[in-house]
């Protein structure tokens, strides 16, 4: 799967295009369930991007945080989301649905574009030219208008696609989700995830633990809130469970 992503890295213009593609590849409808299913793929992609294309990463992080929220919610139904978080999820679905419509529409546009073009007149009757200035034209005004043009030059010349969504680091995002979940079940995975240097892997482990708890394969126990938590296999004979 990694190579598949590596090949297509360049194709995606942004996180929403990528997400839409992941959903469409699996022939899913856009909803919380499908979003939760493609979360791991999305995070895989982000980690590849992290190494290659640093300035684009911020666009993807904000979407990643929403996805992790959705995924956590699907694994822990008792997770209580704030209004802001609910809106974030609703907005993401809306954005994807709109983008899907527009991607389809732009295919239709592309098929028609420049195929049977209509043309303006090539030559408009030559008019006799009379020099007709107005008192709007003087040296200072001309300088002022030129300054306006200079002032309006786009600033970020080296980074065409500047981030638009709010900035959030992978770390902040992770902590945010963990804290939310922490309120609902006492699980911490400090020890479990210590060996992971990549933040993405920590998140994946975290999601994996949640999934195992949900399936009843592991048990999480904790002394006090914010203590380190022990994650134990419920049944020692059960083979390790694949979480895709």
């Amino acid at each position: 799967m990694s190579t598949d992503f590596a090949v297509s890295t360049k194709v995606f213009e942004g996180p929403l295009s990528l997400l839409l593609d992941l959903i469409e590849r699996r022939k899913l409808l856009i909803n919380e369930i499908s979003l939760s299913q493609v979360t791991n793929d999305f995070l895989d992609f982000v980690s590849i991007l992290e190494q290659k294309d640093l300035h684009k990463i911020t666009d993807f992080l904000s979407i990643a945080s929403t996805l992790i929220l959705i995924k956590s919610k699907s694994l822990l139904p008792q997770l209580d989301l704030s209004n802001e978080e609910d809106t974030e999820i609703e907005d993401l679905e809306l954005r994807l649905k709109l983008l899907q419509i527009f991607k389809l529409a732009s295919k239709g546009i592309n098929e028609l574009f420049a195929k049977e073009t209509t043309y303006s007149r090539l030559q408009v009757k030559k008019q006799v030219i009379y020099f007709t200035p107005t008192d709007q034209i003087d040296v200072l005004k001309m300088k002022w208008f030129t300054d306006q043009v200079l002032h309006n030059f786009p600033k970020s010349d080296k980074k065409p696609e500047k981030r638009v969504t709010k900035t959030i680091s992978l770390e902040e995002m992770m902590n945010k989700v963990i804290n939310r979940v922490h309120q609902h079940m006492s699980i911490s995975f400090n020890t479990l995830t210590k060996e992971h240097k990549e933040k993405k892997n920590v998140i994946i482990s975290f999601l994996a633990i949640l999934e195992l708890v949900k399936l009843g394969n592991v048990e999480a126990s904790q002394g006090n809130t914010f203590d380190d938590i022990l994650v134990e296999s419920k049944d020692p004979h059960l083979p390790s469970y694949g979480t895709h």
Partner: protein
Amino acid sequence: MNIKQHIESIIFFKGQPVTYKELAKLLENSEEKIKKTVEELSFDYKDKGIHIVYNEHECELVTAPSGSDLISNMNKQEVETELSNASLETLSIILYMGPIARSMIDFIRGVNSQFTLRTLLIRGLIEKDPTSKMPLYIITLDIIKYLGLNKLDELPNFKEIRQEIAQFIKNNSKDAVQ
């Protein structure tokens, strides 16, 4: 000469898009009346070698699309042949949702559209809505010309798609559209 003939005469003479506002002023009539007459005119011309393209603000006399092969051979002006995916995507958002603010375009695309919009503006495919104080983007008549249409709602499913989008936005989110 009646108003219809006057409009014909003026837009032929101008050889470029003429706004209803300008026509209304010249012909001392309301913009609505002008717009209605332009629609009639466009219909009168539908089987001719010349067509009338128009949108909410302006109209222009152009060659009919079905003769485009012959005309394109004679044409020396620059024409667009292809658009990038980013341009196409941005264009169709403006086409179906315009007049629309850049923030909304960015919201839907999930990326900053500043440079794509600039490219489209430079090519004359979109412009800022002259009737709005806020910077809202609309498509120009050039798009309609490139698509070989008289007006936008001749696009397949144009109204349905516009409605579908409006419905989505209405149902889905109270504060997505700012």
